[in-house]
């Protein structure tokens, strides 16, 4: 859009009608800008697929949707497992190399320790009234959060598009994610 003041070819000042048209054009532009600003946008890139790392993006996304924001969560690499209907039921907490775990690594590395740590966390979540991952996914989708599954990762992991929850967006890549990020007020990498 040109920002030059309109004028006639011979350099004479613009007529009242021309100025009027120009004012109307600018008013429309401002109205469009206001409409664009009315809704906040957030893009989260979810890259992790452990039990504990599945929570932050889902909690923020569902809450942002409650604010009426336009929310996209782009799931890539291990983050894709959060949207995988079967794998999302079985996300694990890693006991090894996790300084928050009350056990030494040598013990944490024993078979079944991840399963045990995950079971303990699941029990605490249940006791605390914290939602399950599946509940948060359903809530997010119900509220119109766009949960996107990176197409490249789907192929890399040899997943099928049918493996994901209904209403998950497939067939999207980095360019789509960047486009949403560029338009977003908030961008997060988890």
């Amino acid at each position, binding site marked *: 859009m040109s920002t030059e003041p309109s004028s006639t070819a011979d350099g004479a000042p613009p007529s009242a009608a021309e100025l009027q048209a120009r004012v109307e054009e600018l008013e429309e532009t401002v109205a469009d800008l206001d409409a664009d600003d009315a809704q906040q946008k957030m893009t989260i890139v979810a890259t992790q697929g452990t039990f504990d790392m599945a929570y932050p993006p889902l*909690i923020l996304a569902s809450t942002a949707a*409650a604010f*009426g924001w336009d929310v996209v969560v782009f799931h890539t690499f291990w983050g894709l497992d959060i949207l995988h209907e079967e794998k999302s039921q079985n996300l694990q907490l890693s006991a090894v190399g996790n300084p928050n775990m009350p056990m030494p690594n040598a013990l944490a590395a024993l078979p079944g320790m991840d399963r045990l740590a995950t079971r303990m966390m699941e029990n605490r979540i249940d006791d605390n*009234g914290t*939602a399950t991952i599946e509940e948060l996914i359903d*809530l997010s989708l119900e509220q119109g959060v766009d949960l996107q599954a990176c197409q490249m990762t789907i192929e890399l992991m040899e997943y099928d598009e049918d493996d994901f929850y209904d209403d998950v967006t497939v067939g999207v890549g980095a360019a789509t994610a960047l486009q949403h990020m560029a338009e977003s007020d908030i961008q997060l990498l988890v």
Partner: protein
Amino acid sequence: MSANDDVTETLDVKGASCPMPVVKTKSAIDDVPEGGVLEVLSTDKGSMSDIDGWAAGTSGVELLEQVEDGDVYKHYVEKTA
């Protein structure tokens, strides 16, 4: 006049923790008629700050009152538009 005199609907999210009180409040307020007041009952201590923040950042709702009643946090949200 206290806000709880005008309650149109009550949402009971006792026992649920973040982000449920806010998310459920948003869903419930959608079904409240304009001018109506939604009462939200929660046991989540964070709901005092969260519902306040949600109401401030959301158009068409106004937080009228928040009351701590024993273990229960009561919130009164009016649907203004």
